[in-house]
């Protein structure tokens, strides 16, 4: 019992540290938000006054989200490595609090990004969302899966040269099943037809559970030599 409590507290402490350092420097979040805004603007300007089908809207949304995630989610480990604090952390902190603290931070970052992107997306591309509640659920589960995979891959790359380009290459095959699911479900949320949260949502949750569980196990092999 005491051991589990302390792991929980340490995870909280690490998350708090991430939020504090990010809040004071605002290095990562502003770049991330600007990236998504730039991409969205480019798309919107190119499309002009045309209205898009739900499928197309869903695809565009997730492409912008995915590439923004690729731009921003590796910072949790990359910056530590560059600053020299990663080694200090490896000595004093045990693996699971580090993984979950950084994972939760990345989830919060993606939530913030989604909160920023979705309204602008609706406004710029004149999209209608008949099933907002279901859409939020899909985005919630999708962001969790995306963060889980991205956090593990980011940690993998701390010991590798040429880090940033490899991040997308390594993450894409793993995130792709999730991406395809989410695009389908998001398209259904954008369309005016009836939406049933069927087996697909179960698969999404299953993916999240498997990826997160495995990432937690594998992280020990990355953190400890």
């Amino acid at each position, binding site marked *: 019992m005491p051991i589990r409590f302390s792991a929980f507290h340490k995870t909280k402490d690490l998350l708090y540290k991430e939020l504090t350092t990010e809040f004071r420097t605002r290095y990562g979040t502003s770049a991330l938000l600007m990236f998504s805004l730039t991409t969205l603007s480019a798309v919107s300007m190119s499309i002009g006054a045309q209205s898009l089908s739900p499928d197309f809207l869903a695809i565009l949304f997730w492409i912008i989200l995915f590439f923004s995630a690729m731009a921003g989610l590796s910072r949790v480990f990359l910056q530590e490595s560059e600053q020299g604090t990663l080694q200090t952390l490896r000595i004093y902190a045990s693996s699971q609090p580090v993984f979950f603290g950084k994972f939760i931070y990345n989830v919060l970052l993606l939530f913030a990004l989604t909160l920023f992107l979705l309204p602008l997306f609706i406004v710029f591309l004149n999209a209608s969302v008949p099933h907002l509640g279901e859409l939020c659920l899909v985005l919630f589960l999708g962001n969790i899966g995306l963060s889980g995979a991205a956090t593990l891959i980011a940690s993998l790359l701390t010991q*590798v040269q040429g880090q940033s380009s490899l991040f997308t290459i390594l993450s894409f095959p*793993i995130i792709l099943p999730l991406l395809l699911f989410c695009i389908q479900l998001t398209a259904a949320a954008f369309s005016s037809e009836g939406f049933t949260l069927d087996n697909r949502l179960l698969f999404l949750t299953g993916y999240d559970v498997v*990826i997160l569980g495995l990432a937690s196990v594998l992280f020990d092999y990355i953190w400890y030599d």
Partner: protein
Amino acid sequence: MFFDTSLTALTLAVIWAVFYLVPPAQGLGDLVRIAFFHIPTAWVSVLAFVLSAWWSILYLKTRKIEADALSCRSAALGLIFCLLATISGAVFAKLTWGAYWNWDPRQITIFILLLVYGAYFALRSAIAEPPVRARLSAVYALFAGAAMPFLIFVIPRYYSSLHPEPVINASGHIDMDPVMLAVLLAASAVMTLIYLRLLFRRRCSA
């Protein structure tokens, strides 16, 4: 030596069977013979990946560098077989339905397997120290391996497919002509033996 000779003989026997024993299929005609190359190579590319993941687990548990060498070798062969499967599939698609590529679910799956293999080797080439390289590529292989089943088993059920129905369909009956089935299984067995023979021949230094 004996193994090599008998393997060559078996391969020639299967090739003969594919061209002379198998009757032309309903609808597909003679083109079905490509399937006897395509299906075994696709099967082996998946097997190679599974074995590569298995040796990755072994490496992480025992830290024996031989496990990593086998894992790498298996992945390299898997990549080659995957390429062969993709190309043969594309040729078959062109001849049958007029287009080389249309992101059919099975094509998506095989393409992603290619991406995983490519990413695996990109990762390996970026790490200099052998033990670190072995450990991190093992982690990646396992992580990617966990994501693959979600594609293989789920996507085809959601997208309508131009791909021929799986041989063993939902009701569990085997739908193929018995001769075809026998030759297909023989071709798969021979392909597996070829893969195993190449696997245990040399160690991987990549």
